[in-house]
């Protein structure tokens, strides 16, 4: 809300500096956002919270200042008397839906002279950055900025038929507003209409057909109350915001509508002449009587933590415009003022007292009770994952949860369903809740490639949103990784991660097909039969689709599975102190034999002396071994808990392994 310093002084004598004023209103809830000089006046920008529409006019802010600085407030009485024809003789007002328009007050003035506004009025509006149009329109804007009540002046001659109706728009109804743009209305919109059609979008903007021009002589002055929600809906849909819609969306003071109407007419008679029709039309119902609210004084201590003296409470509440109904020893009952529809509970009064008494009086050294707090297991696991990932040279990324359709369909590991979509895209074209974090990381990868950043090693711990029929989606945390390492390099990161969380867990890999991943180098990872996640080299087509220059590998792991396998508190195992013996085995096997099959055979046949089986390398010599064969070099490490092994013992284990491998895999020991 832009405020003119001079204007404020129309209602009370502010004998404080602007800085002191701004500080004080800020501490009462009217946050000062800055100010500047406009002509010989000062324009202050005060931020008004949505619960205080009474601050959307100079009178309301002056009223608050009168409480804060203990000053007398003078509001113009706005008494006008009609001398012309009775208004009801030539204008009618019909409200079709009182839920939308609880009340509508119409006055009429004949024989006005429309022309430029006087200098003082021009300057007032200019201080607030409001365009000057003509004296009549300027006056409606002036009163709007004075009391926060929107007003509209129609050219009465251009109203067809007997009067106006507040009604819903007809399907397909078109309307040209005073901005001279045409709007397509829907039955959810409300209009002010004459016999022919809409002359205003209720609460939002008047129409070009009935606007006040230099030729206008007769006026219909509208002051009404419209329901917040439909005004906002219409204003939003048509992208048509106005000072009026802004105020109706927040609510106007139902008991000041008539004052605003009179004030507007008073100023028009003063500045544009004319004759006011006798009386006014009041359509709709009277405002509900206001209900009393009781504040139990001990509640102040209970909520605020401080005592406020009873007479101070009474002073604050009454200065704020509350009618004191009764005062007892421990409670006070008031009727809130008409402009404070936000006060209807005890807690509202507590806040009013606190606000004016001052939050600076609340101590900041209260003895808050001690309490135990625990770090959740999920947090511990995530911290350990981050530590390991960072040690593995991975940077943590944070990417958007909402992605394009294309990205949401790029990987199908977790769900084959269509992604959930939001009604408003997060950025253009991105409206799908992601089913995998991988595409987002690949997007980040492309961006980094563009800047020649190396190495690009990224991970993110974030949610995917897997649709479920008739239920909230399965929001699942994943650890998602993209790397410039090759398949085994990234698999090594994943295995290191898993082993760091639980040393004894075995991750198994099986072939996995997805368009994102290379046909050969892609796998599903499992732990105890549960899917841990997916890992692979990016397929050629995906690399192209993500516009990546370099090959990349990706992996995505289910955080829940990692959480379940994590050993949060490792237990000590006794370990032997005798040295190890190692043996290398170079086995010729069928090309089709997978490492984990071979490893399993080695492990079972090695017996309890086996400490470790290490894969060394594979090479091929088709000349010597024939086609379809490969040589697998592996090293076994042996250790006994109670003695130093002899070479013979180690050889025996090796021989046992070789025998088993010969038997089960037709392997041959090289050499």
């Amino acid at each position, binding site marked *: 809300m832009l405020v003119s310093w001079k204007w404020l002084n129309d209602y009370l004598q502010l004998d404080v500096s602007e800085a002191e004023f701004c500080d004080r209103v800020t501490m009462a809830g009217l946050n000062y956002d800055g100010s500047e000089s406009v002509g010989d006046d000062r324009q202050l920008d005060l931020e008004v919270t949505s619960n205080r529409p009474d601050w959307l006019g100079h009178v309301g802010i002056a009223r608050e200042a009168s409480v804060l600085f203990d000053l007398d407030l003078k509001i113009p009485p706005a008494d006008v008397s009609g001398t012309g024809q009775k208004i009801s003789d030539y204008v009618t007002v019909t409200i079709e839906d009182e839920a939308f328009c609880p009340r509508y007050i119409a006055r009429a003035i004949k024989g006005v002279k429309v022309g430029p506004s006087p200098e003082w009025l021009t300057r007032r509006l200019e201080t607030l950055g409001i365009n000057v149009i003509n004296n009549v329109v300027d006056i409606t804007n002036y009163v709007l900025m004075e009391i926060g009540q929107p007003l509209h002046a129609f050219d009465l001659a251009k109203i067809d038929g007997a009067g106006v109706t507040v009604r819903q728009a007809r399907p397909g109804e078109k309307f040209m507003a005073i901005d001279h743009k045409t709007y397509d209305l829907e039955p959810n919109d409300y209009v002010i209409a004459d016999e022919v059609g809409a002359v205003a979008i209720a609460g939002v903007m008047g129409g070009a057909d009935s606007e006040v021009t230099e030729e206008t002589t007769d006026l219909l002055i509208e002051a009404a109350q419209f329901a917040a929600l439909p005004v906002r809906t219409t204003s939003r849909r048509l992208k048509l915001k106005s000072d009026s819609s802004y105020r109706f969306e927040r609510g106007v003071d139902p008991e000041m509508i008539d004052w605003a109407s009179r004030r507007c007419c008073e100023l028009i008679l003063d500045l544009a002449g004319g004759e006011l029709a006798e009386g006014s039309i009041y359509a709709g119902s009277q405002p509900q009587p206001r209900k009393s609210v009781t504040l139990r004084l001990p509640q102040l201590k*209970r909520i605020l933590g401080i005592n406020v003296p009873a007479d101070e409470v009474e002073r604050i509440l009454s200065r704020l415009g509350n009618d004191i109904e009764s005062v007892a020893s421990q409670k006070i009952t008031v009727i809130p003022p008409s402009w404070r529809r936000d006060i209807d509970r005890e807690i509202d009064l507590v806040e009013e007292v606190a606000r004016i008494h001052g939050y600076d009086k609340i101590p900041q050294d209260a003895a808050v009770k001690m309490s135990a*707090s625990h770090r959740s297991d999920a947090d511990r696991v995530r911290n350990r994952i981050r530590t390991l990932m*960072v040690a593995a040279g991975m940077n943590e990324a944070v990417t958007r*949860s909402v992605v394009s359709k294309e990205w949401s369909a790029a990987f199908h590991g977790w769900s084959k369903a269509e992604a959930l979509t939001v009604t408003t895209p997060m950025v253009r074209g991105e409206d799908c*809740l992601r089913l995998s974090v991988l595409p987002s990381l690949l997007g980040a990868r492309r961006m980094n490639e563009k800047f020649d950043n190396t190495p690009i*090693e990224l991970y993110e711990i974030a949610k995917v949103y897997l649709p479920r029929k008739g239920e909230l989606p399965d929001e699942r945390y994943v650890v998602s990784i993209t790397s410039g390492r090759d398949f085994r390099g990234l698999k090594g990161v994943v295995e290191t991660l898993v082993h760091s969380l639980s040393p004894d867990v075995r991750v198994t890999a099986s072939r996995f097909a997805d368009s994102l991943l290379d046909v050969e180098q892609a796998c599903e990872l499992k732990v105890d039969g549960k899917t841990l996640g997916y890992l692979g080299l990016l397929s050629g087509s995906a690399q192209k689709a993500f516009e990546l220059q370099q090959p990349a590998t990706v992996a995505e792991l289910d955080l829940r599975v990692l959480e379940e396998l994590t050993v949060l508190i490792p237990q000590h195992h006794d370990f032997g102190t005798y040295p190890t013996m190692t043996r290398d085995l170079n086995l010729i096997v069928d090309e089709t034999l997978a490492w984990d099959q071979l490893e399993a055979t080695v492990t079972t046949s090695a017996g309890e002396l086996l400490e470790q089986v290490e894969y060394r390398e594979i090479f091929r010599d088709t000349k010597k071994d024939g086609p379809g064969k490969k040589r697998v070099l592996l090293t076994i490490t042996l250790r006994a808990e109670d003695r130093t092994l002899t070479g013979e013992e180690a050889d025996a284990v090796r021989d046992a392994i070789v025998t088993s491998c010969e038997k089960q895999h037709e392997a041959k020991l090289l050499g």
Partner: protein
Amino acid sequence: MSLNDFIRELDNLVDSAVERFNDAVDKFDGEVLEAARVEFLGAKSGKLKSAQKGLGKVSKDDKPVAGKRFNEVKQRIEELFESAVAKLSESGGDGKSSEAFDVSLPGTLLPVGHVHPITQTIEELKDIMGRLGFSAVEGPEIEDDWHNFEALNIPLEHPARDPLDNFYLNAAAKAAGGDMLLRSQTSTVQIRVMENTKPPVRIVSLGRVYRPDEIDATHYAMFHQIEGLMIDTDVTMADLKSVLHLFAKTYLGQDVEIRFRPSFFPFTEPSVEVDMRWNDTWLEFGGAGMVDPNVLRSVGYDPEEVTGFAFGLGVERLCMRRHGVNDIRHLYNNNVRFLSQF
């Protein structure tokens, strides 16, 4: 061990050494060569060393032949290594003796990753609040109207519920009953905790929240919040101020001051903005207030029995302020050169 076995082992050793050293030369990689050197010629556990142990196990008669063979193999492997070094060296193999060891050459750096600054900020905030007795909790990011609005005392006509101000889910997701949306604040988690917990409650809820905002240097449609909630039989605004003061002192430093400014939030009353005075300026820190009686009632608490406070902070703002980040988009672009700074 038979002599044949021993000799076979030595032959294998030469074969694989040839392969490894050639590999290093092919790759023109000194590190690979060094690894191969250690593997074969390593003083402690090199394969040659291990093979030497086998020498002790051949029968006495075979020893002279075995020893001779071993020495040949040893020499052979050393030659192989020297020749590989020569091939790798750009000077064409003047020999090791003429190379000067340059101690000023840079060390081999470890590739170290970095935790995202947002995560670092969240972890620090959780840590501080943890020491004040607040346990961290999380909840779903996709919420229903009840948890995101109704239970928080945000009525249907409140502007915060406008479809254009929220990421509502499209019709297909509504089967679960009622509108679903991406949560616009983490207070939803507080509601979920209160619905399932009897007082006292002392938690921080945190995570991603979403509001449709044009993305620019200071706005992003996705951001992070951390919210504190404390409910008990005798919690007052003085407790709120004291907790926030402790929090600010821990996060920003001992000489920090805080102040409350009146504000409005549907789920708290009284509602305040919290400012912190740091380096001689007042910074807006976040919103706070006493939990509105309607909210307490909506989760089945009796506002005559318990009171509580809640506060919420934007993580991005704190993070950016602390690290001097001037554009929020940096946080989500994931440029490695940005991420590596933290």
